[in-house]
């Protein structure tokens, strides 16, 4: 016979309110978990927010600069193109007119010592302002920039140029909107011929904006102009330029987003841990629910609902926190991305569309619900009898490994060890959570350590000049104001200078990717060509071939070799201003200027092919018997102001480059603190429940004479034991991932070759952090345990 109550079919009702009640009643735990999720998720969102805001900002700057131009022509093989190309382009059918401009970065200073962070832009302005056009020293500034910096029409500013400092007068202010929006308003506009003269771009153009005749499709015009100009030039729609920009630092973004995603993952692990702990703590309650008729599905949905809400609240917190973090980290990240993309990226306005915010909330909440699946499943399997009879399901004191504690002389330590080993489920949860965070710390520590060490090692065996000269400014030398090669000749004639050598870094494209073309003056065989960090053959031999060969030769970086599979003996074709040129690869070198790769060549060949007189830096060799510091002082007093340059010793230069590298990785390093914060909360929850579960047992220990101090020692020792286990596990896991990251991910995705550097610092840091986190996490639960009312605790027996 089948009863009505069995055959009646209606969907299982949800009992979410019970789960929500649990979250509101256990407010402390809910708050701490939400904080942990918020920390992890906000890191993820911060990275996403910054990356897309940077991209959006760059897009806006491009649009502001190109205005209504439908196509943009830029040289692929150098920073300039011959002026005569302009008339050829204008003759292409469908082109209404072509507007040339030159762009450069320059530091601008004025009387009160302020300076424009983004430097000034020099480009053509069209208009009827005769006063503006009739002088090579007149500029226009964005109204917003001028207002920010207290500048007005008629004021004079000083710009650093390749030939030295030059005074410029503000003759007008650009209205809000349009071009003035580019680079956040940090740009200056001047007449194109004045700009060419001032910034050593004689007869050159760095960009041409094309406007089409009505009825001409951009694609059609693009094809025609590309055919005319050949492979040495890029003809793109403005949107394509943004895509190309994005491609140039996609790998770096991927690395950062991967690490940030680990933060989100750790946050989800925290949810899993919290729910696991909560289920363990509520075994009795779940048993009662099951006894009075809650179905497994209802229990499952209730627990998953709790996870979902925790994720949603954590996501909400992360939304707010990410804006704070983004503002704090924006400058650093923009600097790091600028370094990667080999161009100055304007600092963006942060913007998160509503739809994306909703998607993010859904992601954190759904992820949290998924993280809660296993503990929720466990909750459905809870033993009704064990729960109702108040048995302790984990109190398996007879576990075979409990005897491990036997040889330990201290009774307190013995008990601590037994507590750790007889609750394998709780111990593995605690250890697993901490180990995940420590693995994350180890990965970051080892990878950034390897990066820094590799960079440092490169300095140790390559740097030759005693002094280096760069244009004023911030960031990498190749992002500063360029210098004119005539300056090298001037330096060579100075007393105390044994030699002066120019270096030029030009971003060019090879097979669709942006690479660095680095040209160096010959420093002579007597230096052993240490500056060329050749790795596959003797440096001296490679140096002689690079500077003495009758044909065009290059060294390729390891990253270039990894990406394009070109090695010593191969040939490659490079797009140059006057057409394609064939280069013979004569060696492999190390270089980190571009993730896509770098080519090294002699400046004599570079000058001959690219006809570029500019330099990014000059190395100075000091004559024997002449003090380096004395020469440095002389050069500073002579050129620092007149040419707007900095003169650094090799040590100072090294520190500066390492500082820039450190700035790039500080972003990554900050992620580890979030992971540890999450682990701290997770461990606190776990210890809290552990103490609660052992309430009667602890009461009994106090009743039979254990002092509060002994109890505290026992609990802290337990926490440290778990921390030690987590250190071993986390280090093993972290080193494995770091090794994989360095030997595979970085090589294949970024192309850079870093050597795994493992020092005592990573394990020492992990051990110290694990100890600190464990002691902090156990402090309050242990205090609670030592302050328990013995009679009340025993009454529960």
């Amino acid at each position, binding site marked *: *016979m*089948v*009863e009505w*109550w*069995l055959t009646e079919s*209606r*969907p*299982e*009702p949800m*009992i979410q*309110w*019970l789960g929500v*009640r*649990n979250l509101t*009643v*256990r407010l402390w735990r809910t708050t701490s978990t939400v904080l942990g999720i918020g920390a992890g998720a906000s890191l993820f969102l911060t990275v996403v927010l910054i990356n897309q805001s940077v991209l959006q900002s760059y897009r806006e700057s491009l649009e502001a600069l190109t205005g209504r131009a439908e196509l943009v022509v830029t040289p692929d093989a150098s920073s300039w193109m011959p002026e005569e190309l302009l008339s050829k382009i204008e003759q292409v059918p469908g082109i209404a007119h072509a507007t040339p401009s030159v762009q450069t970065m320059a530091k601008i200073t004025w009387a009160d010592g302020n300076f424009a962070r983004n430097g000034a832009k020099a480009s053509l302005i069209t208009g009827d302002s005769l006063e503006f056009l009739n002088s090579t020293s007149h500029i226009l500034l964005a109204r917003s920039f001028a207002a920010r910096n207290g500048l007005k029409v008629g004021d004079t500013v000083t710009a650093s140029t390749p030939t030295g400092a030059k005074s410029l007068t503000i003759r007008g202010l650009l209205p809000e909107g349009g071009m003035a929006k580019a680079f956040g308003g940090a740009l200056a506009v001047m007449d194109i011929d004045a700009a060419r003269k001032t910034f050593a771009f004689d007869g050159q153009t760095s960009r041409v904006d094309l406007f089409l005749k009505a009825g001409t499709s951009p694609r059609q015009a693009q094809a025609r102009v590309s055919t005319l100009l050949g492979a040495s030039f890029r003809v793109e729609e403005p949107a394509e330029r943004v895509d190309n920009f994005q491609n140039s630092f996609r790998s770096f973004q991927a690395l950062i987003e991967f690490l940030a995603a680990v933060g989100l993952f750790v946050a989800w692990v925290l949810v899993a841990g919290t729910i696991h702990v909560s289920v363990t703590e509520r075994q*009795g*309650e779940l048993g*009662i*629910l*099951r*006894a*009075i*008729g*809650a*179905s*497994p599905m*209802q229990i499952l949905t209730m627990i998953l609902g709790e996870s979902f809400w925790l994720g949603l609240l954590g996501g909400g917190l992360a939304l707010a926190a990410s804006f704070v973090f983004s503002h704090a980290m924006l400058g650093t990240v923009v600097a790091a991305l600028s370094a990667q993309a080999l161009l100055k990226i304007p600092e963006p306005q942060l913007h998160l569309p509503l739809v994306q915010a909703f998607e993010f909330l859904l992601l954190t909440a759904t992820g949290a619900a998924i993280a809660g699946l296993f503990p929720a499943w466990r909750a459905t399997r809870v033993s*009704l*009898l064990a729960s*109702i009879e*108040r048995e302790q399901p984990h109190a398996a004191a*007879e576990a075979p490994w409990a005897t491990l504690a036997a040889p330990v002389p201290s009774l307190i330590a013995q008990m601590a060890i037994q507590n750790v080993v007889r609750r394998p489920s709780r111990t593995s949860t605690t250890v697993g959570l901490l180990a995940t965070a420590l693995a994350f710390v180890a990965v970051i520590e080892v990878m950034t350590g390897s990066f820094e060490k590799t960079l440092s090692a490169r300095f140790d065996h390559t740097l030759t000049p005693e002094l280096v000269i760069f244009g004023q400014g911030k960031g990498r030398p190749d992002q500063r104001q360029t210098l004119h090669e005539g300056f090298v000749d001037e330096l060579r004639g100075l007393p105390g200078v044994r030699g002066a050598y120019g270096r030029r870094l030009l971003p060019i494209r090879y097979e669709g990717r942006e690479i660095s073309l680095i040209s160096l003056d010959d420093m002579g065989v007597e230096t052993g060509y240490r500056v060329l960090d050749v790795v596959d053959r003797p440096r001296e031999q490679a140096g002689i071939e690079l500077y003495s060969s009758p044909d065009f030769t290059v060294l390729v970086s390891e990253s270039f070799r990894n990406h394009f599979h070109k090695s010593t003996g191969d040939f490659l074709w490079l797009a140059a201003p006057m057409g394609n040129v064939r280069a013979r690869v004569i060696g492999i070198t190390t270089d980190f200027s571009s993730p896509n790769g770098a080519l090294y060549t002699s400046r004599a060949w570079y000058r001959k092919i690219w006809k570029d007189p500019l330099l990014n830096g000059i190395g100075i060799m000091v004559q024997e018997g002449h003090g380096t510091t004395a020469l440095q002082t002389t050069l500073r007093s002579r050129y620092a102001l007149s040419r707007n340059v900095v003169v650094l010793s090799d040590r100072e230069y090294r520190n500066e480059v390492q500082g820039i590298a450190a700035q790039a990785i500080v972003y990554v390093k900050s992620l580890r603190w979030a992971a540890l914060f999450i682990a701290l909360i997770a461990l606190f929850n776990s210890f809290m429940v552990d103490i609660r579960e052992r309430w009667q047992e602890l009461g009994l220990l106090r009743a039979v004479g254990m002092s509060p101090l002994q109890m505290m020692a026992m609990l802290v020792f337990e926490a440290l034991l778990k921390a030690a286990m987590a250190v071993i596990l986390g280090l093993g896991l972290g080193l494995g991932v770091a090794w994989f990251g360095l030997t595979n991910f970085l090589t294949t995705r970024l192309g850079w070759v870093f050597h795994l550097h493992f020092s005592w610092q990573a394990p020492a840091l992990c051990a110290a952090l694990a100890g600190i986190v464990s002691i902090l996490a156990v402090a309050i639960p242990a205090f609670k345990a030592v302050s328990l009312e013995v009679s009340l605790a025993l009454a529960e027996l």
Partner: protein
Amino acid sequence: MLLKVESLSKTYETSSGKPVSVLSDINLSIDGAEFVTIMGPSGSGKSTLLQLIGSLDRPTGGRILVNGADLSSLDEMGRTLFRRRKLGFVFQAFHLIPLLTAEENVALPLVLDGTSRGKALERARALLGGVVGLGQRGKHRPGQLSGGEKQRVAIARALIANPDLILADEPTGALDSATSGEILALLKSLRSEQGRTILMVTHDETAARYGTRIIRLRDGRMVADGKPA
């Protein structure tokens, strides 16, 4: 016949694999509106019998029929629905959900069965204010109630789904004698005034006398079945 137990047995295995018989060859039948008490010393198997009838555990042998339905043929969902709709539990340790108020605890079985929360709470308030006399304490949490009040809330929870059978496991075991008397009187009135069927486990002879019938167990076997003296 409401409940029929046939040749029921339960055997556990110790950690060394040795079987230990807790119940053996139990046969009994209970009609509606009976108040049956099960008595016996510790380890006699009385709680195990209650747990088997309450489908909290599965028997090793024999079968349990409730209104003709064989519990052993039910799957997990069937057993859940049986507990939810046909049984009311009252435990020695009350087993209320600490984070819910008294009326929410009482309403819970109905909510689990799909009744709207509002309707379930309305019914819970009526029960608390009526049969168990706790109308003023509905908004209090278990921690704010006395032992006797907690047990009254538990009884109201057991009644709310209008079950066929109420199972009470030492319901006065955690109460003083005065409060125990009140609780037992309440259970007794449920039978006499509402025609409820109650099966109560106790080791207290005084408590057992509130029932209409006493079943005695010893070493897992039924040794007596009769009316209280």
